[in-house]
């Protein structure tokens, strides 16, 4: 893939990731945020956090299945957008929903499992975002950086559980996200097992490609 194609691809990702925010802004301007705007905005931002997070987790499986290398170049951008939407989602909860009612929010974080895992996912995203630069990779060393960034699997699990545990039982949509997450992890597990068997050794063969493992 040429450098120009890579830039074009990133422009497309930027546009696609900002579009939900644009649509939300437009709906706000039109006064079209339903009868319960705070709940609508919270859900909108949460939905898009989960979608972008799952798309970022789909880049490695795409490479495994289709042997494309370009998806790997998009992981960081997608991951940062997921973190961005998660932060907005949190800010709406903090400011609009509870208006800095710290005590009640603190109690909710401890008492409500869906909020506990949601907060965990957000907090774990912060070190990942902070070490997303080339300099951070260099300073940490590739191996350590890759280990750290496997935390994204925990983030994905927490995010999926967050939705599963907050939705009412009759709503099927959290199960779709959970199924997508399981599928993406299964592809990784399958690939890992396959390479281990092929190498005939207890640890997976290091891949020649850049950014393996996350």
């Amino acid at each position, binding site marked *: 893939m040429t450098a120009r194609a890579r830039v074009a691809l990133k422009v497309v990702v930027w546009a696609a990731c900002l579009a939900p925010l644009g649509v939300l802004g437009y709906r706000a301007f039109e006064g079209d945020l339903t*009868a319960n705007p705070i709940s609508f905005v919270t859900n909108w931002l949460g939905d898009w956090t989960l979608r972008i997070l799952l798309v970022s987790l789909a880049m490695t499986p795409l490479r495994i299945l289709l042997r494309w290398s370009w998806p790997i170049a998009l992981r960081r951008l997608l991951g940062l957008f997921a973190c961005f939407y998660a932060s907005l989602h949190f800010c709406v909860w903090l400011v609009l929903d509870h208006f800095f009612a710290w005590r*009640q929010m603190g109690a909710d974080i401890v008492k409500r499992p869906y909020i506990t895992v949601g907060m965990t996912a957000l907090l774990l995203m912060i070190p990942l975002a902070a070490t997303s630069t080339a300099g951070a990779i260099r300073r940490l060393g590739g191996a350590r950086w890759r280990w750290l960034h496997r935390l994204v699997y925990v983030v994905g699990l927490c995010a999926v559980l967050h939705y599963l545990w907050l939705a009412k039982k009759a*709503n099927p949509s959290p199960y779709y996200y959970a199924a997508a997450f399981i599928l993406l992890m299964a592809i990784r597990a399958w690939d890992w097992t396959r390479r281990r068997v092929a190498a005939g050794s207890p640890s997976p063969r290091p891949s020649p490609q850049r950014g393996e493992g996350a």
Partner: protein
Amino acid sequence: MLIKRGGEIKSGEITDRALYLNRRAFMAGAAALALAPGVAAAAPPAAGQPLAATHNKAFDLPDATTKFQDATTYNNFYEFGVNKDDPANLAGTLKPRPWKVQVDGLVQKPQTFDVDDVIRMAPLEERVYRLRCVEGWSMVIPWIGFPLSVLLKRVDPTGSAKYVEFSTLVDPEQFPGQKKGFFNFGGLDWPYTEGLRLDEALHPLTLLTVGMYGQVLPNQNGAPIRVVVPWKYGFKSAKSIVRIRLTSDEPKTAWNKAAPQEYGFYSNVNPKVDHPRWSQATERRIGEFRRRPTLMWNGYDQVAGLYSGMDLKKLY
């Protein structure tokens, strides 16, 4: 007599919206008029048309009335779908006429009523009630109806009747949310059933409801006939009722079957008993910014006597 409406609504707005939502019913009504001019006077009122009722001041609240637009576009009515806007978007599929309500079980005089005969059973009154959803939001709605006790006394419950079960219509053609399919797994069991203890059902607050905001009940709000039990979470107030059955045992209820540890038979509004997954201490009143504290019994303290001596944490 003309009914006083909520202050914020322009009357023109209401009519336009209602006609839009109920175009099918309106056109069916128009067709009926054209075909049978002789029975025009007896034509049943279609959703959105004005419904005369006497305003009952005894239930007036200091709270502002929720906008008609909000109360008719933000609904939980899983028969149409799980999203809040599904009921308003798909409301046209429900045909509220002709409609029968079967009242049977442990009664001396079981009977199947035409809904229009039920409506004429007692003078209609308008009452403004708070509505608190189990999800943590609330509205203030002017309903039109009469106490359910009028209908129950008409069928004469036997001495062994202890509970009342309400069933909502099952018809996937009218209620798309009831269609079986790959995307509808994990849903509720149809029919949607709800229940009350007989003394709760006979309480003067329990309203058999056929209208709101001075109009015939819109389809998305449970047309043509529903109950409103203002001191309980909203899902207890069954909509689009086709059967009322008196029983000796506590009826199985739809949400209790789906998640027994989350939705009890009583489901009285109680800020001190949390839903297992979220707090019930506060609520967001639709149209307001800050959360407000949730009131015990949703502010209807007159029902407290029904539950004296009961452990409200156990019998949630």
